[in-house]
Protein backbone atom coordinates (compact mmCIF):
# COMPACT_ATOMS: atom_id res chain seq x y z
CA UNK A 1 0.00 0.00 0.00
CA UNK A 2 2.82 2.40 0.97
CA UNK A 3 4.30 1.77 -2.43
CA UNK A 4 1.09 2.80 -4.18
CA UNK A 5 0.99 6.08 -2.27
CA UNK A 6 4.63 6.74 -2.99
CA UNK A 7 4.06 6.26 -6.70
CA UNK A 8 1.20 8.77 -6.68
CA UNK A 9 3.37 11.74 -5.72
CA UNK A 10 6.72 12.79 -7.11
CA UNK A 11 7.31 15.29 -4.31
CA UNK A 12 6.04 15.54 -0.74
CA UNK A 13 6.94 18.76 1.03
CA UNK A 14 6.07 19.54 4.65
CA UNK A 15 6.16 23.02 6.09
CA UNK A 16 8.59 23.01 9.01
CA UNK A 17 5.92 24.68 11.19
CA UNK A 18 3.62 21.67 11.01
CA UNK A 19 6.12 18.83 10.88
CA UNK A 20 5.17 17.59 14.35
CA UNK A 21 1.42 17.59 13.75
CA UNK A 22 -0.23 14.15 13.80
CA UNK A 23 -1.09 14.49 10.10
CA UNK A 24 2.48 15.35 9.09
CA UNK A 25 3.83 12.47 11.17
CA UNK A 26 1.55 10.05 9.34
CA UNK A 27 2.69 11.38 5.96
CA UNK A 28 6.29 10.99 7.12
CA UNK A 29 5.58 7.40 8.01
CA UNK A 30 4.09 6.62 4.62
CA UNK A 31 6.43 8.63 2.38
CA UNK A 32 9.64 8.28 4.42
CA UNK A 33 12.64 9.61 2.55
CA UNK A 34 10.47 11.06 -0.17
CA UNK A 35 9.48 13.82 2.26
CA UNK A 36 11.32 17.12 2.34
CA UNK A 37 10.82 19.47 5.29
CA UNK A 38 10.91 23.06 4.10
CA UNK A 39 10.74 26.50 5.69
CA UNK A 40 7.46 28.05 4.57
CA UNK A 41 6.28 27.59 1.01
CA UNK A 42 7.93 25.53 -1.72
CA UNK A 43 10.46 27.59 -3.67
CA UNK A 44 8.84 26.81 -6.99
CA UNK A 45 5.27 27.46 -5.89
CA UNK A 46 3.18 29.25 -8.52
CA UNK A 47 0.24 31.34 -7.47
CA UNK A 48 -0.99 32.35 -10.86
CA UNK A 49 -3.08 30.89 -13.61
CA UNK A 50 -1.63 27.49 -14.45
CA UNK A 51 -0.80 26.08 -17.84
CA UNK A 52 -2.27 22.68 -18.70
CA UNK A 53 1.08 21.04 -17.98
CA UNK A 54 1.40 22.78 -14.61
CA UNK A 55 -2.10 21.72 -13.63
CA UNK A 56 -1.30 18.07 -14.40
CA UNK A 57 1.95 18.37 -12.47
CA UNK A 58 0.15 19.88 -9.47
CA UNK A 59 -1.55 16.54 -8.89
CA UNK A 60 1.82 14.91 -8.30
CA UNK A 61 3.26 17.45 -5.84
CA UNK A 62 1.98 17.46 -2.31
CA UNK A 63 2.49 20.20 0.24
CA UNK A 64 1.43 20.05 3.88
CA UNK A 65 0.95 23.28 5.78
CA UNK A 66 -1.51 25.04 8.06
CA UNK A 67 -4.50 27.09 6.94
CA UNK A 68 -4.71 30.58 8.40
CA UNK A 69 -8.02 31.82 6.95
CA UNK A 70 -11.67 31.00 7.52
CA UNK A 71 -12.45 27.32 7.05
CA UNK A 72 -16.21 27.60 6.51
CA UNK A 73 -17.88 28.86 3.39
CA UNK A 74 -21.39 28.61 2.00
CA UNK A 75 -22.08 26.13 -0.84
CA UNK A 76 -21.13 27.62 -4.26
CA UNK A 77 -24.60 26.86 -5.63
CA UNK A 78 -26.18 29.34 -3.24
CA UNK A 79 -27.00 32.33 -5.35
CA UNK A 80 -30.03 33.94 -6.85
CA UNK A 81 -31.86 32.04 -9.58
CA UNK A 82 -30.35 28.68 -8.70
CA UNK A 83 -31.98 26.18 -6.39
CA UNK A 84 -29.54 24.62 -3.97
CA UNK A 85 -29.27 23.07 -0.56
CA UNK A 86 -28.24 24.57 2.81
CA UNK A 87 -24.68 23.53 2.93
CA UNK A 88 -21.42 24.56 4.59
CA UNK A 89 -18.17 23.64 2.95
CA UNK A 90 -15.08 22.63 4.89
CA UNK A 91 -11.91 22.70 2.83
CA UNK A 92 -9.07 20.79 4.46
CA UNK A 93 -6.87 21.31 1.45
CA UNK A 94 -7.18 21.73 -2.28
CA UNK A 95 -6.50 19.87 -5.53
CA UNK A 96 -7.14 16.20 -6.01
CA UNK A 97 -4.99 13.19 -6.77
CA UNK A 98 -7.59 11.85 -9.21
CA UNK A 99 -8.14 13.38 -12.63
CA UNK A 100 -11.64 13.81 -14.05
CA UNK A 101 -11.84 15.46 -17.45
CA UNK A 102 -14.68 17.76 -16.36
CA UNK A 103 -13.24 18.67 -12.94
CA UNK A 104 -14.04 22.26 -12.12
CA UNK A 105 -10.75 22.66 -10.27
CA UNK A 106 -9.25 23.15 -13.74
CA UNK A 107 -10.82 26.59 -13.98
CA UNK A 108 -10.32 27.43 -10.37
CA UNK A 109 -6.95 26.38 -8.98
CA UNK A 110 -3.93 28.60 -9.24
CA UNK A 111 -1.35 26.65 -7.32
CA UNK A 112 0.99 24.02 -8.68
CA UNK A 113 0.89 22.03 -5.42
CA UNK A 114 -1.83 19.82 -4.06
CA UNK A 115 -2.14 21.15 -0.53
CA UNK A 116 -3.32 19.47 2.66
CA UNK A 117 -3.98 21.52 5.79
CA UNK A 118 -2.82 19.90 8.98
CA UNK A 119 -4.66 22.11 11.50
CA UNK A 120 -8.01 20.32 11.51
CA UNK A 121 -8.36 21.25 15.19
CA UNK A 122 -8.76 24.92 14.17
CA UNK A 123 -11.57 23.97 11.80
CA UNK A 124 -13.32 22.10 14.58
CA UNK A 125 -12.93 25.06 16.94
CA UNK A 126 -14.53 27.27 14.28
CA UNK A 127 -17.39 24.82 13.94
CA UNK A 128 -17.89 24.64 17.67
CA UNK A 129 -18.23 28.43 17.73
CA UNK A 130 -21.43 28.23 15.64
CA UNK A 131 -23.41 27.75 18.84
CA UNK A 132 -26.47 29.56 17.49
CA UNK A 133 -26.83 26.89 14.82
CA UNK A 134 -26.53 23.99 17.22
CA UNK A 135 -30.19 22.98 16.93
CA UNK A 136 -30.56 23.69 13.23
CA UNK A 137 -30.28 21.22 10.38
CA UNK A 138 -26.82 22.19 9.16
CA UNK A 139 -24.95 20.12 6.61
CA UNK A 140 -21.18 20.28 6.39
CA UNK A 141 -19.47 18.85 3.34
CA UNK A 142 -15.75 18.26 2.95
CA UNK A 143 -15.40 17.49 -0.73
CA UNK A 144 -15.54 20.79 -2.57
CA UNK A 145 -11.96 21.46 -3.67
CA UNK A 146 -10.38 18.23 -2.49
CA UNK A 147 -11.86 14.74 -2.44
CA UNK A 148 -13.06 13.93 1.08
CA UNK A 149 -11.55 10.47 1.26
CA UNK A 150 -8.88 9.93 -1.39
CA UNK A 151 -6.06 10.68 1.11
CA UNK A 152 -8.07 9.82 4.19
CA UNK A 153 -6.29 6.55 4.97
CA UNK A 154 -3.30 8.80 5.74
CA UNK A 155 -4.91 11.95 7.18
CA UNK A 156 -7.63 10.05 9.09
CA UNK A 157 -9.64 13.28 9.13
CA UNK A 158 -12.84 11.27 8.75
CA UNK A 159 -12.31 9.77 12.21
CA UNK A 160 -11.75 13.17 13.85
CA UNK A 161 -14.81 14.66 12.16
CA UNK A 162 -17.13 11.73 12.89
CA UNK A 163 -16.10 11.94 16.51
CA UNK A 164 -16.80 15.69 16.62
CA UNK A 165 -20.22 15.36 14.97
CA UNK A 166 -21.31 12.78 17.54
CA UNK A 167 -22.09 15.75 19.82
CA UNK A 168 -24.18 17.56 17.20
CA UNK A 169 -27.03 15.21 16.34
CA UNK A 170 -28.90 17.92 14.40
CA UNK A 171 -25.94 18.44 12.11
CA UNK A 172 -24.92 16.28 9.25
CA UNK A 173 -21.42 15.59 8.06
CA UNK A 174 -20.99 14.67 4.43
CA UNK A 175 -18.00 13.04 2.83
CA UNK A 176 -18.04 13.29 -0.94
CA UNK A 177 -15.80 10.98 -2.88
CA UNK A 178 -15.00 9.11 -6.04
CA UNK A 179 -12.72 6.76 -4.18
CA UNK A 180 -13.58 3.55 -2.37
CA UNK A 181 -11.41 4.35 0.66
CA UNK A 182 -13.74 3.94 3.63
CA UNK A 183 -12.28 1.17 5.74
CA UNK A 184 -10.27 3.58 7.91
CA UNK A 185 -13.42 4.91 9.62
CA UNK A 186 -15.86 2.01 9.53
CA UNK A 187 -15.15 1.11 13.16
CA UNK A 188 -15.87 4.66 14.40
CA UNK A 189 -18.69 5.16 16.84
CA UNK A 190 -21.10 7.59 15.21
CA UNK A 191 -24.44 9.20 15.71
CA UNK A 192 -26.02 8.23 12.39
CA UNK A 193 -25.43 11.75 11.13
CA UNK A 194 -22.52 11.01 8.82
CA UNK A 195 -23.39 10.74 5.15
CA UNK A 196 -20.91 9.12 2.85
CA UNK A 197 -21.77 10.17 -0.64
CA UNK A 198 -20.47 9.04 -3.96
CA UNK A 199 -20.42 10.92 -7.15
CA UNK A 200 -21.21 8.08 -9.47
CA UNK A 201 -21.37 7.41 -13.16
CA UNK A 202 -21.72 4.29 -15.28
CA UNK A 203 -18.56 2.32 -16.12
CA UNK A 204 -18.43 3.73 -19.66
CA UNK A 205 -18.15 7.27 -18.28
CA UNK A 206 -15.80 6.37 -15.42
CA UNK A 207 -13.42 4.63 -17.82
CA UNK A 208 -13.37 7.50 -20.27
CA UNK A 209 -13.61 10.55 -18.02
CA UNK A 210 -12.83 9.85 -14.37
CA UNK A 211 -9.17 8.91 -14.45
CA UNK A 212 -7.62 7.43 -11.33
CA UNK A 213 -10.94 7.07 -9.52
CA UNK A 214 -12.45 3.89 -8.07
CA UNK A 215 -14.44 1.74 -10.49
CA UNK A 216 -18.22 1.70 -10.50
CA UNK A 217 -18.37 -1.60 -8.61
CA UNK A 218 -15.67 -0.56 -6.12
CA UNK A 219 -17.68 2.54 -5.24
CA UNK A 220 -20.89 0.57 -4.79
CA UNK A 221 -19.12 -2.07 -2.70
CA UNK A 222 -17.65 0.68 -0.47
CA UNK A 223 -21.12 2.18 -0.11
CA UNK A 224 -22.45 -1.20 0.98
CA UNK A 225 -19.75 -1.49 3.62
CA UNK A 226 -20.69 1.96 4.96
CA UNK A 227 -24.39 1.12 4.96
CA UNK A 228 -23.71 -2.09 6.84
CA UNK A 229 -22.05 -0.03 9.57
CA UNK A 230 -25.03 2.30 9.86
CA UNK A 231 -23.66 5.25 7.90
CA UNK A 232 -26.06 7.14 5.68
CA UNK A 233 -25.40 6.75 2.00
CA UNK A 234 -25.97 9.18 -0.78
CA UNK A 235 -25.32 9.08 -4.50
CA UNK A 236 -24.80 11.99 -6.83
CA UNK A 237 -25.32 10.96 -10.41
CA UNK A 238 -23.48 14.02 -11.43
CA UNK A 239 -22.39 15.02 -13.95
CA UNK A 240 -24.50 12.88 -16.25
CA UNK A 241 -22.57 12.77 -19.47
CA UNK A 242 -24.07 12.11 -22.87
CA UNK A 243 -22.31 9.41 -24.87
CA UNK A 244 -23.40 6.89 -27.48
CA UNK A 245 -25.79 4.43 -25.79
CA UNK A 246 -26.10 6.67 -22.74
CA UNK A 247 -29.52 5.24 -21.94
CA UNK A 248 -28.09 1.72 -21.62
CA UNK A 249 -25.27 2.97 -19.42
CA UNK A 250 -27.50 4.95 -17.07
CA UNK A 251 -30.10 2.17 -16.99
CA UNK A 252 -27.35 -0.16 -15.77
CA UNK A 253 -26.33 2.36 -13.14
CA UNK A 254 -29.86 2.87 -11.83
CA UNK A 255 -30.63 -0.85 -11.83
CA UNK A 256 -27.43 -1.67 -10.00
CA UNK A 257 -28.11 0.96 -7.30
CA UNK A 258 -31.69 -0.27 -6.91
CA UNK A 259 -30.59 -3.88 -6.64
CA UNK A 260 -28.05 -3.15 -3.93
CA UNK A 261 -29.84 -0.45 -1.93
CA UNK A 262 -33.35 0.33 -0.85
CA UNK A 263 -34.74 3.88 -1.15
CA UNK A 264 -34.71 4.07 2.66
CA UNK A 265 -30.98 3.39 2.73
CA UNK A 266 -30.29 6.27 0.35
CA UNK A 267 -32.29 9.20 1.71
CA UNK A 268 -31.09 11.62 -0.93
CA UNK A 269 -30.01 11.02 -4.42
CA UNK A 270 -29.12 13.87 -6.70
CA UNK A 271 -28.86 14.13 -10.43
CA UNK A 272 -27.09 16.80 -12.45
CA UNK A 273 -26.02 17.00 -16.05
CA UNK A 274 -22.65 18.19 -17.33
CA UNK A 275 -21.94 21.89 -16.80
CA UNK A 276 -18.76 23.89 -16.65
CA UNK A 277 -17.42 27.42 -16.87
CA UNK A 278 -16.53 28.44 -20.43
CA UNK A 279 -12.97 29.28 -19.32
CA UNK A 280 -12.51 25.66 -18.33
CA UNK A 281 -12.94 24.45 -21.88
CA UNK A 282 -9.43 25.38 -23.00
CA UNK A 283 -7.77 23.51 -20.17
CA UNK A 284 -9.97 20.44 -20.72
CA UNK A 285 -9.28 20.42 -24.44
CA UNK A 286 -5.54 20.81 -23.96
CA UNK A 287 -5.47 18.02 -21.40
CA UNK A 288 -7.95 15.49 -22.80
CA UNK A 289 -8.48 16.48 -26.47
CA UNK A 290 -11.55 15.13 -28.22
CA UNK A 291 -11.25 11.59 -26.84
CA UNK A 292 -13.27 12.87 -23.94
CA UNK A 293 -17.09 12.77 -24.10
CA UNK A 294 -17.00 16.06 -22.24
CA UNK A 295 -15.01 17.79 -24.96
CA UNK A 296 -17.17 16.17 -27.63
CA UNK A 297 -20.31 17.51 -25.93
CA UNK A 298 -22.54 19.98 -27.74
CA UNK A 299 -22.90 22.63 -25.08
CA UNK A 300 -24.50 26.05 -24.91
CA UNK A 301 -24.41 28.92 -22.45
CA UNK A 302 -27.13 28.74 -19.81
CA UNK A 303 -28.57 31.64 -17.84
CA UNK A 304 -25.83 31.30 -15.24
CA UNK A 305 -23.12 31.60 -17.89
CA UNK A 306 -22.07 27.95 -17.63
CA UNK A 307 -21.93 25.69 -20.64
CA UNK A 308 -24.55 22.93 -20.57
CA UNK A 309 -26.33 20.55 -22.89
CA UNK A 310 -29.33 21.98 -24.64
CA UNK A 311 -32.31 22.19 -22.30
CA UNK A 312 -34.35 19.55 -24.14
CA UNK A 313 -31.51 17.03 -23.96
CA UNK A 314 -31.00 17.77 -20.26
CA UNK A 315 -34.66 17.21 -19.64
CA UNK A 316 -34.58 13.95 -21.58
CA UNK A 317 -31.64 12.76 -19.49
CA UNK A 318 -33.27 13.76 -16.19
CA UNK A 319 -36.58 12.19 -17.21
CA UNK A 320 -34.84 8.97 -18.16
CA UNK A 321 -33.08 8.55 -14.82
CA UNK A 322 -36.05 9.69 -12.76
CA UNK A 323 -38.46 7.36 -14.53
CA UNK A 324 -36.06 4.44 -14.22
CA UNK A 325 -35.76 4.99 -10.45
CA UNK A 326 -39.47 5.51 -9.98
CA UNK A 327 -40.17 2.32 -11.95
CA UNK A 328 -38.08 0.45 -9.41
CA UNK A 329 -39.87 2.14 -6.54
CA UNK A 330 -41.82 5.39 -6.17
CA UNK A 331 -40.08 5.78 -2.80
CA UNK A 332 -36.82 6.96 -4.39
CA UNK A 333 -36.16 10.62 -3.55
CA UNK A 334 -34.24 12.45 -6.18
CA UNK A 335 -33.20 16.07 -6.41
CA UNK A 336 -31.36 18.20 -8.88
CA UNK A 337 -28.47 20.27 -7.68
CA UNK A 338 -27.33 23.32 -9.68
CA UNK A 339 -30.47 23.47 -11.79
CA UNK A 340 -32.75 26.45 -12.16
CA UNK A 341 -36.20 26.44 -10.50
CA UNK A 342 -37.66 26.23 -14.04
CA UNK A 343 -35.97 22.89 -14.66
CA UNK A 344 -37.29 21.63 -11.33
CA UNK A 345 -40.78 22.65 -12.29
CA UNK A 346 -40.50 21.10 -15.76
CA UNK A 347 -39.20 17.81 -14.37
CA UNK A 348 -40.99 17.44 -11.03
CA UNK A 349 -43.84 19.88 -11.50
CA UNK A 350 -42.69 22.00 -8.52
CA UNK A 351 -39.65 23.72 -6.97
CA UNK A 352 -37.41 21.94 -4.41
CA UNK A 353 -39.27 23.66 -1.58
CA UNK A 354 -42.31 21.57 -2.37
CA UNK A 355 -40.49 18.24 -2.36
CA UNK A 356 -41.33 17.16 1.18
CA UNK A 357 -38.25 15.15 2.13
CA UNK A 358 -36.04 17.88 0.71
CA UNK A 359 -37.76 20.84 2.30
CA UNK A 360 -35.52 20.57 5.33
CA UNK A 361 -32.41 20.76 3.18
CA UNK A 362 -33.56 23.87 1.40
CA UNK A 363 -34.39 25.96 4.47
CA UNK A 364 -32.33 29.11 4.47
CA UNK A 365 -29.82 29.23 7.31
CA UNK A 366 -30.45 32.22 9.54
Amino acid at each position, binding site marked *: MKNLWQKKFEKVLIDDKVKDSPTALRFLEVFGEQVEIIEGEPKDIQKKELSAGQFTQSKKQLYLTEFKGQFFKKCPGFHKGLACCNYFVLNLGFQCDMDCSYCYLQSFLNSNYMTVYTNIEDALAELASFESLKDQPVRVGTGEVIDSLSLDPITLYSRTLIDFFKDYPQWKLEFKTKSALVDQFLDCEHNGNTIVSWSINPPAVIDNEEHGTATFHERLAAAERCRDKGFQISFHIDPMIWHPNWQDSYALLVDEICQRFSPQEVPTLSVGTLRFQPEQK*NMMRERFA*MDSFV*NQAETFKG*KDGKLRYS*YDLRKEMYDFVLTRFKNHSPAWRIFMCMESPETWVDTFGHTPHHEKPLKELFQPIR
Partner: protein
Amino acid sequence: MTWYALSVFFADKSDLISLNFAPRSHCFSQARVEWNDIVLNSQVCESKALVDLSAEEPSDVLFDVFGDLSFVEIAELYAACTKISGFIQKISWPLFCQRQDMQWNEKTEQLCEAVAQLPPKFLAWAHKKQASPRDLQPLMAIKDLAVVSPLLEHFESQAPSRSQGKMIIDLLVDLTLSNHDQTSLEPDKQSAWYDKLYKMRNPMTVARDKTLREDEQWPQYVQIHNQRQGDRIVKKMQILYSDNKDLSKKLGRLSEMEHL
Protein backbone atom coordinates in the same frame (compact mmCIF):
# COMPACT_ATOMS: atom_id res chain seq x y z
CA MET B 1 7.67 57.33 -19.21
CA THR B 2 11.07 56.85 -17.60
CA TRP B 3 13.75 59.59 -17.73
CA TYR B 4 17.13 58.38 -18.75
CA ALA B 5 20.72 59.55 -18.59
CA LEU B 6 21.43 59.57 -22.29
CA SER B 7 24.47 58.65 -24.30
CA VAL B 8 23.89 59.66 -27.87
CA PHE B 9 26.00 58.36 -30.74
CA PHE B 10 26.05 59.72 -34.22
CA ALA B 11 29.12 57.87 -35.31
CA ASP B 12 28.95 54.28 -36.55
CA LYS B 13 29.13 51.60 -33.91
CA SER B 14 30.32 48.25 -35.07
CA ASP B 15 29.05 44.86 -33.80
CA LEU B 16 25.50 46.06 -33.27
CA ILE B 17 22.74 43.44 -33.49
CA SER B 18 19.27 44.42 -34.62
CA LEU B 19 16.20 43.13 -32.86
CA ASN B 20 14.02 41.72 -35.61
CA PHE B 21 10.80 43.34 -34.49
CA ALA B 22 8.72 46.23 -35.72
CA PRO B 23 5.47 47.14 -34.04
CA ARG B 24 2.45 46.83 -36.33
CA SER B 25 0.95 50.14 -35.31
CA HIS B 26 3.62 52.69 -34.45
CA CYS B 27 6.92 52.97 -32.68
CA PHE B 28 6.84 55.11 -29.60
CA SER B 29 10.43 56.21 -29.79
CA GLN B 30 11.57 58.54 -32.54
CA ALA B 31 15.22 57.90 -31.76
CA ARG B 32 17.04 54.63 -32.41
CA VAL B 33 17.62 52.91 -29.10
CA GLU B 34 20.46 50.59 -28.24
CA TRP B 35 20.67 48.30 -25.25
CA ASN B 36 23.94 46.41 -24.76
CA ASP B 37 24.79 46.36 -28.47
CA ILE B 38 21.26 45.47 -29.51
CA VAL B 39 19.37 48.02 -31.57
CA LEU B 40 15.83 47.59 -30.34
CA ASN B 41 14.04 49.56 -33.03
CA SER B 42 16.16 49.17 -36.10
CA GLN B 43 13.22 50.14 -38.32
CA VAL B 44 13.76 53.76 -37.29
CA CYS B 45 15.70 55.57 -40.00
CA GLU B 46 19.46 55.09 -39.67
CA SER B 47 20.05 58.82 -39.88
CA LYS B 48 18.40 59.24 -36.45
CA ALA B 49 20.54 59.49 -33.36
CA LEU B 50 21.41 56.22 -31.60
CA VAL B 51 20.63 56.42 -27.90
CA ASP B 52 22.42 54.03 -25.59
CA LEU B 53 20.22 52.91 -22.69
CA SER B 54 22.35 49.95 -21.63
CA ALA B 55 22.41 51.15 -18.03
CA GLU B 56 18.64 50.81 -17.73
CA GLU B 57 16.38 47.90 -16.88
CA PRO B 58 15.58 46.32 -20.29
CA SER B 59 11.87 45.73 -19.58
CA ASP B 60 11.50 49.48 -18.91
CA VAL B 61 13.44 50.31 -22.03
CA LEU B 62 11.29 47.99 -24.17
CA PHE B 63 8.14 49.58 -22.82
CA ASP B 64 9.38 53.09 -23.43
CA VAL B 65 10.55 52.28 -26.93
CA PHE B 66 7.42 50.46 -28.06
CA GLY B 67 4.63 51.73 -25.78
CA ASP B 68 1.37 49.76 -25.55
CA LEU B 69 1.39 46.72 -27.77
CA SER B 70 -1.37 44.39 -28.88
CA PHE B 71 -1.08 40.78 -27.76
CA VAL B 72 0.03 39.77 -31.24
CA GLU B 73 2.82 42.35 -31.06
CA ILE B 74 3.88 41.15 -27.62
CA ALA B 75 4.11 37.61 -28.98
CA GLU B 76 6.17 38.81 -31.93
CA LEU B 77 8.43 40.87 -29.70
CA TYR B 78 8.93 37.89 -27.39
CA ALA B 79 9.81 35.65 -30.35
CA ALA B 80 12.26 38.25 -31.67
CA CYS B 81 13.94 38.57 -28.26
CA THR B 82 14.38 34.79 -27.97
CA LYS B 83 16.34 34.84 -31.22
CA ILE B 84 19.14 36.93 -29.74
CA SER B 85 21.26 34.69 -27.57
CA GLY B 86 21.04 35.47 -23.86
CA PHE B 87 18.78 38.52 -24.34
CA ILE B 88 15.49 36.98 -23.25
CA GLN B 89 16.88 35.98 -19.85
CA LYS B 90 17.81 39.58 -19.14
CA ILE B 91 14.29 40.92 -19.58
CA SER B 92 11.79 40.75 -16.76
CA TRP B 93 8.72 39.67 -18.75
CA PRO B 94 6.39 39.73 -15.75
CA LEU B 95 7.31 43.40 -15.29
CA PHE B 96 7.06 44.22 -18.97
CA CYS B 97 3.66 42.48 -19.25
CA GLN B 98 2.39 44.17 -16.12
CA ARG B 99 2.99 47.48 -17.87
CA GLN B 100 1.08 46.07 -20.85
CA ASP B 101 -1.84 45.17 -18.51
CA MET B 102 -1.19 41.49 -18.98
CA GLN B 103 -0.18 38.65 -16.68
CA TRP B 104 2.97 36.76 -17.53
CA ASN B 105 3.02 33.09 -16.67
CA GLU B 106 3.91 29.78 -18.28
CA LYS B 107 0.59 29.74 -20.07
CA THR B 108 1.16 33.17 -21.64
CA GLU B 109 4.72 32.27 -22.52
CA GLN B 110 3.63 29.12 -24.35
CA LEU B 111 0.90 31.06 -26.12
CA CYS B 112 3.35 33.77 -27.23
CA GLU B 113 5.66 31.14 -28.70
CA ALA B 114 2.76 29.56 -30.60
CA VAL B 115 1.13 32.78 -31.78
CA ALA B 116 4.36 34.13 -33.26
CA GLN B 117 4.35 31.19 -35.67
CA LEU B 118 0.83 31.72 -37.00
CA PRO B 119 0.33 32.86 -40.60
CA PRO B 120 0.79 36.60 -41.22
CA LYS B 121 -2.74 37.01 -42.61
CA PHE B 122 -4.23 35.66 -39.41
CA LEU B 123 -1.93 37.78 -37.27
CA ALA B 124 -2.96 40.88 -39.20
CA TRP B 125 -6.61 40.12 -38.35
CA ALA B 126 -5.82 39.29 -34.71
CA HIS B 127 -3.83 42.49 -34.28
CA LYS B 128 -6.49 44.64 -35.95
CA LYS B 129 -9.21 43.17 -33.72
CA GLN B 130 -7.01 43.41 -30.61
CA ALA B 131 -7.45 39.68 -29.97
CA SER B 132 -6.62 38.82 -26.36
CA PRO B 133 -4.71 35.80 -25.02
CA ARG B 134 -8.07 34.31 -24.03
CA ASP B 135 -9.35 34.63 -27.62
CA LEU B 136 -6.35 32.74 -28.97
CA GLN B 137 -5.84 30.21 -26.16
CA PRO B 138 -8.04 27.52 -27.82
CA LEU B 139 -5.33 27.11 -30.46
CA MET B 140 -3.04 25.68 -27.79
CA ALA B 141 -4.98 22.43 -27.88
CA ILE B 142 -3.60 21.74 -31.35
CA LYS B 143 -0.19 20.14 -31.14
CA ASP B 144 0.87 21.00 -34.67
CA LEU B 145 -0.44 24.43 -35.56
CA ALA B 146 0.84 24.09 -39.11
CA VAL B 147 -2.20 21.85 -39.67
CA VAL B 148 -4.65 24.72 -39.15
CA SER B 149 -2.52 27.48 -40.65
CA PRO B 150 -4.20 27.34 -44.09
CA LEU B 151 -7.59 27.73 -42.40
CA LEU B 152 -6.42 30.63 -40.28
CA GLU B 153 -5.34 32.49 -43.41
CA HIS B 154 -9.01 32.86 -44.32
CA PHE B 155 -9.46 35.29 -41.44
CA GLU B 156 -8.11 38.05 -43.62
CA SER B 157 -10.66 37.58 -46.42
CA GLN B 158 -13.56 36.61 -44.14
CA ALA B 159 -12.80 39.47 -41.75
CA PRO B 160 -15.01 38.30 -38.89
CA SER B 161 -15.62 40.57 -35.93
CA ARG B 162 -13.54 39.85 -32.83
CA SER B 163 -16.34 37.95 -31.05
CA GLN B 164 -17.30 35.98 -34.14
CA GLY B 165 -13.64 35.28 -34.86
CA LYS B 166 -13.25 33.96 -31.35
CA MET B 167 -16.16 31.56 -31.89
CA ILE B 168 -14.76 30.47 -35.26
CA ILE B 169 -11.38 29.70 -33.68
CA ASP B 170 -13.13 27.62 -31.03
CA LEU B 171 -15.08 25.66 -33.62
CA LEU B 172 -12.05 25.16 -35.85
CA VAL B 173 -10.09 23.74 -32.94
CA ASP B 174 -12.85 21.31 -31.95
CA LEU B 175 -13.39 20.16 -35.51
CA THR B 176 -9.68 19.79 -36.19
CA LEU B 177 -9.21 17.74 -33.04
CA SER B 178 -12.16 15.60 -34.15
CA ASN B 179 -10.16 14.74 -37.29
CA HIS B 180 -12.34 16.55 -39.78
CA ASP B 181 -10.73 16.95 -43.16
CA GLN B 182 -9.22 20.45 -43.20
CA THR B 183 -10.60 21.30 -46.64
CA SER B 184 -14.12 20.58 -45.39
CA LEU B 185 -13.61 23.33 -42.81
CA GLU B 186 -12.84 26.05 -45.32
CA PRO B 187 -15.34 28.85 -45.88
CA ASP B 188 -17.61 28.45 -48.89
CA LYS B 189 -20.26 30.41 -50.73
CA GLN B 190 -23.26 28.40 -49.44
CA SER B 191 -23.35 29.80 -45.94
CA ALA B 192 -21.52 32.08 -43.56
CA TRP B 193 -18.32 30.45 -42.27
CA TYR B 194 -19.48 30.46 -38.65
CA ASP B 195 -22.86 28.89 -39.54
CA LYS B 196 -21.19 26.16 -41.53
CA LEU B 197 -18.76 25.29 -38.72
CA TYR B 198 -21.49 25.50 -36.08
CA LYS B 199 -23.56 22.93 -37.97
CA MET B 200 -20.58 20.63 -38.36
CA ARG B 201 -19.70 20.95 -34.66
CA ASN B 202 -23.22 20.45 -33.31
CA PRO B 203 -24.90 17.95 -35.65
CA MET B 204 -27.03 16.40 -32.93
CA THR B 205 -28.42 19.70 -31.71
CA VAL B 206 -28.99 20.99 -35.23
CA ALA B 207 -30.95 17.82 -36.06
CA ARG B 208 -32.96 18.03 -32.83
CA ASP B 209 -33.72 21.72 -33.32
CA LYS B 210 -34.97 20.98 -36.83
CA THR B 211 -37.26 18.20 -35.76
CA LEU B 212 -38.96 20.20 -33.01
CA ARG B 213 -42.43 20.03 -34.48
CA GLU B 214 -44.97 22.77 -34.22
CA ASP B 215 -47.62 20.69 -32.51
CA GLU B 216 -49.99 23.51 -32.01
CA GLN B 217 -52.28 24.64 -34.78
CA TRP B 218 -51.83 28.30 -35.55
CA PRO B 219 -53.98 30.49 -37.78
CA GLN B 220 -52.51 31.34 -41.16
CA TYR B 221 -51.62 34.92 -40.21
CA VAL B 222 -49.18 33.63 -37.58
CA GLN B 223 -45.73 32.32 -38.37
CA ILE B 224 -43.71 30.49 -35.74
CA HIS B 225 -39.97 29.92 -35.97
CA ASN B 226 -37.74 28.01 -33.59
CA GLN B 227 -34.67 29.96 -32.60
CA ARG B 228 -31.78 28.88 -30.37
CA GLN B 229 -31.01 31.18 -27.46
CA GLY B 230 -28.14 29.76 -25.43
CA ASP B 231 -29.12 26.38 -24.03
CA ARG B 232 -32.80 26.71 -25.00
CA ILE B 233 -35.00 26.85 -28.04
CA VAL B 234 -37.38 29.77 -28.02
CA LYS B 235 -40.21 30.39 -30.43
CA LYS B 236 -40.34 33.53 -32.49
CA MET B 237 -43.85 34.60 -33.52
CA GLN B 238 -44.65 36.82 -36.45
CA ILE B 239 -48.12 38.21 -37.00
CA LEU B 240 -49.11 39.54 -40.37
CA TYR B 241 -51.65 42.39 -40.16
CA SER B 242 -52.83 45.23 -42.34
CA ASP B 243 -53.72 47.93 -39.80
CA ASN B 244 -54.24 48.39 -36.05
CA LYS B 245 -57.87 47.28 -36.25
CA ASP B 246 -56.82 44.12 -38.02
CA LEU B 247 -54.12 43.58 -35.40
CA SER B 248 -56.46 43.86 -32.42
CA LYS B 249 -58.93 41.51 -34.12
CA LYS B 250 -56.19 38.94 -34.70
CA LEU B 251 -54.77 39.30 -31.18
CA GLY B 252 -58.27 38.86 -29.83
CA ARG B 253 -58.70 35.64 -31.78
CA LEU B 254 -55.30 34.43 -30.61
CA SER B 255 -56.13 35.01 -26.95
CA GLU B 256 -59.15 32.77 -27.34
CA MET B 257 -57.06 29.87 -28.61
CA GLU B 258 -57.16 26.92 -26.28
CA HIS B 259 -53.44 26.19 -25.99
CA LEU B 260 -52.56 29.76 -24.97
